[in-house]
């Protein structure tokens, strides 16, 4: 560098600027770490759920053997001689979910077929927001509807129906799940390429045949995933069954009777001020753990099905 030329070159200016660490630079370097810490919160939530459920469930199984919990058909947490069998709750959850799916699967799938295959663009645009409203109604409102309207209505048809029963909340829960099954199935069916439909239509197939033999087989993985996700939703649903199916811990096949689901049991125990440290208190976590495992398994399965068996065109 010649001593005459005191002006630093542009390159030197840039180098100097690079060496100087400004506040902005520091922020720039810290941001990813801060964001990562916040992101890890979501993982922490999962860990929190698992640790909470595991440790308290473990405590419960020290008092009540796991085999007894899983095979006993009576649940009497507050009697002199308490018995902790989860089977009555599983029965309640099984029946309410089964009834719900008997409503949601056929109607949801048929709705999806209509919207995806038959309805015009204009009609579809009208119907879809209305289904979204149905999906957006809070579950407590469905609970109110089941308890004060559907149950009295069913009572007129089925004389032996108890005022709290598993049938009415099951049906209402099914209605609640219709939009979920419909919109997920419709997504799967809409993503079947138009060329495949046109090919079949060109060979003289009717729309019904195209739907049955081309569209549904092609979209089957997505459709099954929608069923499984709907079922998982039914198993985890709380307020409808808490309000409308009562708290009788019944191990029965009679859906006109009051039965308690796993979720409703959790509500009953937490609402009933079970003293922390009592066996009843710990039973809450064992039931929640069962519920958590059931729903997790279904969600993982649904994702596996829709990914593994997806037909790619």
């Amino acid at each position, binding site marked *: 560098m010649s001593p005459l030329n005191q002006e630093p070159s542009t390159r030197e200016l840039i180098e100097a600027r690079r060496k100087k660490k400004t506040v*902005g630079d520091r922020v720039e370097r810290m941001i990813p770490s801060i964001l990562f810490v916040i992101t890890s*919160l979501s993982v922490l939530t999962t860990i929190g759920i698992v640790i*909470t459920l595991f440790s308290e469930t473990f405590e419960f199984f020290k008092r009540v053997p796991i085999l007894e919990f899983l095979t006993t058909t009576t649940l009497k947490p507050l009697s002199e001689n308490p018995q902790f069998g989860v089977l009555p709750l599983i029965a309640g959850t099984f029946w309410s979910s089964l009834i719900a799916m008997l409503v949601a699967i056929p109607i949801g799938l048929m709705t999806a077929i209509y919207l995806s295959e038959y309805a015009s663009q204009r009609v579809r645009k009208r119907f879809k927001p*209305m289904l979204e409203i149905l999906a957006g109604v809070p*579950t407590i409102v469905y609970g109110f509807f089941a308890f004060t309207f559907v149950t009295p209505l069913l009572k007129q048809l089925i004389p032996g129906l108890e005022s709290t029963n598993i049938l009415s909340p099951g049906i209402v829960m099914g*209605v609640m799940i219709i939009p979920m099954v419909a919109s997920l199935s419709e997504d799967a069916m809409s993503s079947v390429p138009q060329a495949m439909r046109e090919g079949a239509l060109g060979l003289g197939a009717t729309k019904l*045949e195209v739907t049955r033999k081309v569209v549904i087989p092609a979209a089957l993985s997505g459709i099954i995933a929608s069923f499984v996700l709907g079922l998982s939703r039914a198993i985890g649903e709380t*307020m409808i069954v808490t309000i409308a199916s009562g708290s009788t811990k019944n191990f029965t096949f009679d859906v006109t009777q009051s039965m308690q689901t796993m979720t409703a049991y959790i509500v009953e125990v*937490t609402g009933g001020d079970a003293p922390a440290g009592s066996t009843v208190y710990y039973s809450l976590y064992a039931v*929640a753990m069962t519920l958590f495992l059931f729903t997790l398994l279904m969600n993982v399965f649904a994702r596996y099905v829709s990914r593994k068996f997806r037909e790619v065109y």
Partner: protein
Amino acid sequence: MEQAEVMVHVEKRLNRRLMSNKIGRFVFLLATLFGLFVLALLLYRVVSEGWSYINWSFLTGKLSTDPNRAGIFGAILGTLWLMAVVAPVTMILGVATAIYLEMYARPNKLTELIQTNIANLAGVPSIVYGILGLTVFVRLMDLGNVVLAGGLTMSLLILPIVIVASQEALRAVPSYLSEGSLGMGATKWQTIRSVVLPVALPGILTGAILALSRAIGETAPLVVIGIPALLIPLPGSIFDKFTVLPMQVYYWTLDSSLVAEYANLAAATIIVLLLVLLLLNSIAIVVRNKFTKRF
């Protein structure tokens, strides 16, 4: 002669196929209308039961065991307090997580794990979040069943929804915008802050408002953390006990077998709750349609 017979046969078959297609179309339409029919029935039922009970003293009055004097002001206030906790917490945590995952995270196993984890969290029943809230916020951190504990529980519940919606909004920002900004010499964070986020904001807000409306209607986690059914003083801060609209619906519905008029009060509360949700959803639609820029 033989040909004519074949033609008749073909005709018959064709008619049958066309007929079943028509029947199918009709049945599928009926199924679609069934959901809407139940929705209409539900709304009609709620409005006819509750409308006459809505008046000024119901909206501004305190809770009472006397159906004629009972008001839901405490529940409305409690819902607002709950929103005051849930909205900022989920916005900050949700958007930060989405920015990290979309802008900074490398596509490796860890990122995949986080993404899978968020998808799984969205499928965890709300009542399990209630148990987490009860154990961690109410008991372990000893907050008690106050607004803050309820708000944090609800925040965890809707966080996955906000994250996924924000991620979609960020992904929808055209890459040439950020490339232009980077090309002009802006740093990554400057680009995110001043170019990407403003464009993605309407989408993020829409998702956040919809998630918030889920939190407002949700009951199960709050039942589990133990929101009292007793007459409590109006909440004045996030450390006060509170009740919310859906909780009020829950207790009144349960007790409607004792006092018939409680069913009407529950219906009236549902109307208020649905109006709040309608308002929020309208805001979300306005935000989405008015402020979304198209490129």
